[in-house]
Structure formats: structure tokens, C-alpha cells
């Protein structure tokens, strides 16, 4: 066990916003690690490392830096293991970690820990043509109406009738299912990552247990850090890009939905972890951390996971699309008009827990990679063939959800990000305190009062959650976003602030 001072020898500052984790920081590192942080965020990172050293490795999670390095030791990783500014400890991979694996290398792996339990957790942003003034008098009623339409919390059930057959089709078709059934607008599809459907999805690779969990939950928000927010545009940094997204003026009202694949995705990940532990023994895959269970991409376990993951991802899109439908209904009801007249178009829909096959350039050579993004968001540059035609000139919109009561951001992808981080940027604030710690240190009435003072309406299913999700429990999202902007891996476009929050 090395001391904190000894550990520091393996860490090098590359620039004001980037640190280098050298090989040897943990055993078997095949590539170097890098992480992005500004002075505030790096303090959190180093504190975490120091604490872990003082504890001699006992108690709590591995520090984020160690997790980034452990990922760099996985077989088949290419380039580097990257921690984004919002990185914090997670299961196996840190949340806010991205890593790419070479598809042509038979030893390369896929790891459910690199995707996360909430498969295709993501953020969707809808615009409206309303001004804050139009909403203010109705703010409380609107929050209640949204709360009535979108069931929240642990054990919630959705209001869209689903049969087992419907679910099978939804798992296979993603947004296309929603389109067919009429829950989505034709234009919604083009503004989703992957066009809202992963084609390799195979519902037969999803256990019946997972399906059983998923069936009643479609169209529900869930608990944890998930939310639906009514937001207003607080600041526009890039006028042209904002215009392309249909954001025309300050105080324009938007709706942000942050949710994922609910119990369904969780079950798919759990099932895969069990199957992969066996496969690791069989194929003699060595990893530094038991939580980094993985399988060769081409093995049956690897393929089954990717197909099941894709089906869960499709579920998440149907879920967000269903909540879009319900939000549109809620707004139409409150304003006595149609969603069409309110111009409630999807600006974009990002996934920040997903593994995808992508083409990237490594040392000038084009390679097919399996890119794991856990708590990190794809941010492709202008002219990339996989981004919607409307954003070809601006770069892909990246939706960064803040925490309850803090602001959210829309960024755009950059060429520099494509080269340095495989077209990846941050995903949100990232926890600073553990859930247990938040519960000990904070009082929920204080948190609610603080929100009230900011003029934010809130509806929650479980008040205890408010403490875990208080802004104090998270890193400052503005620090996170500013670091990404300064490092050039994405570009600030719009800042949003909430006026009403619906949470689990």
C-alpha cells in the first residue's frame, strides 16, 4: 500500500484542466489515464484519493482516479481511459468515465460496469414557444398536472396500457414503436441519438424477470436523480446554435426529462454480471477489481449482453418518449391548446449510460471501437454523419442535467472533443457526497425552503430523497460545464434554470 505522497508521483498536470495518470498507478495499465478538472473539482478528486490512502483501502468506494486507472488495465482498451469533470465513484467504472475497446482485437472486452445499471439513462429536452410570464401564474398547477401525468417514485406504475406483446415490440423497435402507436411525432425520431432505436436489440436476450419488472413501469420517471423539470432559458452563449435548436429568446420555457430504463435495464445489467463472472473464469480474463466483470466482445456472453443492452436502451427511449407524450398532454391541458401550437418539439435526446460501436481515428488510422460511456455523453462535432441534419453545422447538442434546483446546460460537440475524448463530454453535476452522507448532514425542510426561496415549485414522491438530491450533495454543475468548455471538448450553448421540479 503506497502513501498519498507516493501516489502523487504517478499524477501529472497536463494543462489547467487536464491531469495525466501514468502507467503504474495501478497494476497492468495498458494505456494511460486522463481526467479533466478545474481547481475546485481537482481538489475533490485529490481529497478522495488522500482519504482512501489514509483508510488503507478499507471502507467506501475506490477513489475515482483509481477506478479510471483500473479501466485502463482492461484487455483491448485503446487510446486512453478518460475521466470527465463530473467523475465520481461508481460500480466498477467511475461514473463519468469513458473507455473504448478495439472491435478487431479478439481479447477486447465489453463490461456492464462500463455502461451502468440504468442502461441508456439520458436526458431529453423539449422546447415550447411560451415565455416565463405565460407560465408563472400557472406554475403550481402546471407542476401538479405534470406530477399527475408522469408517475414518479420507487414502485410507480405508468398510465400507458401495455401488454407483454407490446413490450416485446417496444424492446425491439424503440422510438419506432412509439411512432407506430402514435405516442411520438415523426420529427422526434430524427432528434434522438441513434434515431431512438438500436438495431442490434434482441428481446429474446432479455430475461423474463427483466421484462416483468419493465412492463408496468413504462412511462414512469423512477427515483434517484431522475426528474422532469420545467425550465426557462437563463442565458444564450451561442446565438446561432441556439436558433438551430429553436431557442429564440431568454426566458423561453423548456421541459427537461431525465430518466432511463427503470428496473428493466437494472435487471439486464445484473443478469449479465452473473453470466460474465463465469465467462471470465473460462476465458481467463484478469481484472484489477471484481466489479469490472466483463467478457470478450465476440463471446456469447458479450454478444448477449450487447443485444440485451440494446433492447433495454430501446425501452429507455420508449420511456422518455412516453413521458414526452404525457408532458405534451399536460401542457396542452393547462394552456387549452394543442402541443403543436405550443411548438413542443424535441430539441435532442442524449444517452449517458451506453456502449456503442463507433468509428474513430487512432494515430491517423480508422478503427471500429466499442465505446463505453458511463455518466458521460456523446458529443460529436459538426459534420459528423451520425448527428441530425439540423445540427450538422453546430455540432451535436449535449444536454447536461443539473441537480434539483440548480441550472442545466446545453453544450455542442467539437472537433477537439472528437480527437481527445472520442467525442465525449460530461453528463451532469456528479455526486460529491454519498447518499448516506447527504442524509446525515442535511435536513429536508431546509432543502425545500431553499428551493421555495428561489421560486421553484417542487413535487416529490418521497421527501427523504430531497436530501440525497440536494444541490449540496453534488459537484457544482457550472464548474463541470466550464471545465469542459475551457478544455475544448464541448462548447457552451445555452444555460437553463428550473422553475418547477418533479422527482421520485
Amino acid at each position, binding site marked *: 500500500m503506497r502513501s498519498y505522497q507516493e501516489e502523487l508521483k504517478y499524477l501529472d498536470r497536463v494543462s489547467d484542466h487536464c491531469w495525466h495518470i501514468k502507467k503504474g498507478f495501478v497494476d497492468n495499465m495498458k494505456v494511460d489515464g486522463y481526467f479533466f478538472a478545474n481547481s475546485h473539482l481537482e481538489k475533490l478528486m485529490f481529497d478522495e484519493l488522500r482519504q482512501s490512502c489514509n483508510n488503507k483501502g478499507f471502507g467506501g468506494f475506490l477513489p475515482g482516479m483509481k477506478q479510471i486507472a483500473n479501466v485502463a488495465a482492461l484487455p483491448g482498451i485503446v487510446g486512453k481511459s478518460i475521466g470527465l469533470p463530473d467523475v465520481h465513484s461508481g460500480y466498477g467504472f467511475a461514473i463519468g468515465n469513458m473507455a473504448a475497446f478495439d472491435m478487431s482485437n479478439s481479447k477486447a472486452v465489453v463490461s456492464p460496469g462500463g455502461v451502468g445499471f440504468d442502461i441508456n439513462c439520458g436526458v431529453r429536452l423539449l422546447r415550447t414557444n411560451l415565455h416565463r410570464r405565460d407560465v408563472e401564474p400557472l406554475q403550481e398547477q402546471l407542476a401538479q398536472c405534470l*406530477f*399527475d401525468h408522469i*408517475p*414518479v*417514485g*420507487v*414502485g*410507480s*406504475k*405508468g*398510465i*400507458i*396500457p401495455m401488454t407483454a406483446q407490446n413490450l416485446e415490440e417496444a424492446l425491439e423497435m424503440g422510438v419506432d414503436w412509439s*411512432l*407506430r*402507436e*402514435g*405516442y411520438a411525432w*415523426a*420529427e422526434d*425520431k*430524427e432528434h434522438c441519438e441513434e434515431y431512438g432505436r438500436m438495431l442490434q436489440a434482441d428481446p429474446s436476450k432479455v430475461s423474463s424477470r427483466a421484462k416483468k419488472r419493465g412492463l*408496468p413501469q413504462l412511462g*414512469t420517471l423512477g*427515483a434517484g436523480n431522475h426528474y422532469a423539470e420545467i425550465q426557462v432559458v437563463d442565458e444564450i452563449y451561442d446565438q*446561432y446554435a441556439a*436558433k438551430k435548436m429553436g431557442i429564440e429568446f431568454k426566458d423561453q420555457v423548456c421541459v427537461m426529462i431525465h430518466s432511463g430504463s427503470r428496473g428493466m435495464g437494472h435487471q439486464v445489467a445484473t443478469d449479465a454480471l452473473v453470466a460474465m463472472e463465469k465467462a471470465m473464469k473460462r476465458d481467463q480474463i484478469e481484472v484489477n477489481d471484481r466489479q469490472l466483470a466483463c467478457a470478450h466482445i465476440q463471446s456469447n456472453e458479450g454478444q448477449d449482453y450487447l443485444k440485451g443492452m440494446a433492447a433495454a436502451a430501446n425501452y429507455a427511449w420508449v420511456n422518455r418518449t412516453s413521458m414526452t*407524450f*404525457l408532458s405534451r*398532454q399536460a401542457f396542452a391541458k393547462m394552456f387549452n391548446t394543442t402541443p403543436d401550437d405550443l411548438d413542443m418539439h424535441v430539441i435532442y435526446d442524449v444517452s449517458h449510460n451506453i456502449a456503442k460501436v463507433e468509428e474513430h481515428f487512432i494515430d491517423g488510422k480508422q478503427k471500429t471501437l466499442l465505446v463505453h460511456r458511463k455518466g458521460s455523453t456523446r458529443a460529436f*462535432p*459538426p*459534420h459528423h454523419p451520425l448527428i*441530425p*441534419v*439540423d445540427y*450538422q*453545422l453546430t455540432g451535436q447538442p449535449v444536454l447536461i442535467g443539473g441537480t434539483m434546483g440548480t441550472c442545466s446546460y446545453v453544450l455542442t460537440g467539437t*472537433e477537439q472533443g472528437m480527437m481527445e475524448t472520442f467525442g465525449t463530454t460530461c453528463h451532469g453535476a456528479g455526486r460529491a457526497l454519498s447518499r448516506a452522507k447527504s442524509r446525515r448532514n442535511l435536513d429536508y425542510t431546509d432543502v425545500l425552503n431553499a428551493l421555495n426561496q428561489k421560486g421553484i415549485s417542487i413535487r416529490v*414522491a*418521497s421527501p427523504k430523497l430531497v436530501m440525497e438530491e440536494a444541490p449540496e450533495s453534488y459537484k457544482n454543475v457550472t464548474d463541470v460545464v466550464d471545465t469542459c468548455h475551457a478544455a475544448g471538448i464541448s462548447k457552451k450553448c445555452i444555460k437553463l434554470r428550473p422553475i418547477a421540479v418533479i422527482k*421520485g
Partner: protein
Amino acid sequence: MFKRKLQALDFPDPSMFDIQDDGQFRSMVLWLEDQKIRHYKIEDRAGLRNFDSSNQWTSALQEYLTGLHCPYSTENRRSMLDWLLGYAVRLEYGDNAEKYSSVTPEKFLERQSQNTRQSSNPLENLDFNDPQFKAGVTSLSMMLKIPPHENHLEMLKAICLLVCEKFSPDAIAAISQASKSEDELIPLDQTALGFEAGDMIMTEVAKILRLLHIRDLRDLQTKINAAIVAVQAITANPKTDSRLGKVGR
């Protein structure tokens, strides 16, 4: 052969005329004298009417041609008939000079456009390599400020595209709407190309091509959306049942 002149003289079925056929040739000469030229009095035309005796008819024709001061003899049947037809056309024009001189190119086009509605495709009858046609294309392109291209047919394609995009009623309506949101335009030098194209001119060309490509993609995406909407009209039937809803803890 002779078709246009015969048409001008209102000869019935001009395309069927065969100059090698003696019978037809003789009938033609007689028809011209009877209907158009009228050089002889009616009773003096008996010699030309005498089709049965070949020699007598030929000498009657020779005599007739001498009377008209035709420069061709009966041996050169083709040139002779052409002259005869030309002479008949001249007489016809003389009789109705006023009527014919009132025909202007505009009126002709107008009448032709009326005819186009009957014929399937009048453009098929156009001579695309006619110098006049080429000159027309060039002057059109100058008016529309389209850069020249060596192939005038390519030029014509460019003109067609431009006219459809800029001067169709839809396009004009769209422009008058778009003028309100003019600030959406972004200067070419502020758009990123995404790769190196060498010099400045090539970069600009590449950017323009990219923009055109994006426009085509948008067009395609719009068509895709329209197709989805068309299918939705048949399949979509979204339902909600609030009794199913349950808020968790």
C-alpha cells in the same frame, strides 16, 4: 421533301406525296395550276389534264413551264417542282400579304403553346443544337447570372433548377416570409468546414458543397417524416388510462 411548302399551301396530306410516282406528280402539277397558280384560263388547261398520253402531257408541261419562265426543264423533275411550289407560295403570300405580315413571333409562340396542350411533348420537336437556341440559353444565363458552362444543355439544366427554386410561386412566397427572419443567415467564413481543403478558394467551394449536401439531406429527412406521418394515419392510436397510474414512495 416539299412538306413545308405543301403545308403552307394547305395541300391535303403532304407527307403522302411521292414525286417518283408519275400519276401523283402530274396530279400535283395540275392541282397547283388549278388551285394556286392559275396561269392559264380553265379551258386552256386541257393539255395538263391529259394524263393518259405521256408524251403529250410532257410537252404540255414544257410549254407551261416556258410560259411561267421556269429556269428548270422537265428533266430535272425535283428542282422544277420545288421552283413551282415556291412560285405558288409566293403567289399565295401576295394574295394575303397583309394577313401573313401581321404574324409576329409572339403570336406564333402563343399559338404553339396552345398546340402543346394537344401534342404530348412539344420539346421533342425542338432543335436543341440550333444556334439560336444556344444563344437563347446564353442570354438567359447572363440574365440570371449563372456562370457559363461549355455545354449549353448543362447550362439549361442549371437555369431550370434556378428558376424552379427562386421564381416558382412557392419559392417567391417562401422568400417573402424568410425576409423577416434574416438574421438566421450565417456568413460562409464563419462556418467550419471540418477538414483542410488546401487553399482558400477550394475551402470555400467545399463549404458550399457541404451546405448543398445538408440541404439535400434536410429535404430527404422531411420526406421521411412525411412517410412516417402517412403511416401513422393508419396505425396510430395512443391511449392512456389514468386508473393504471400509481405514484411510488
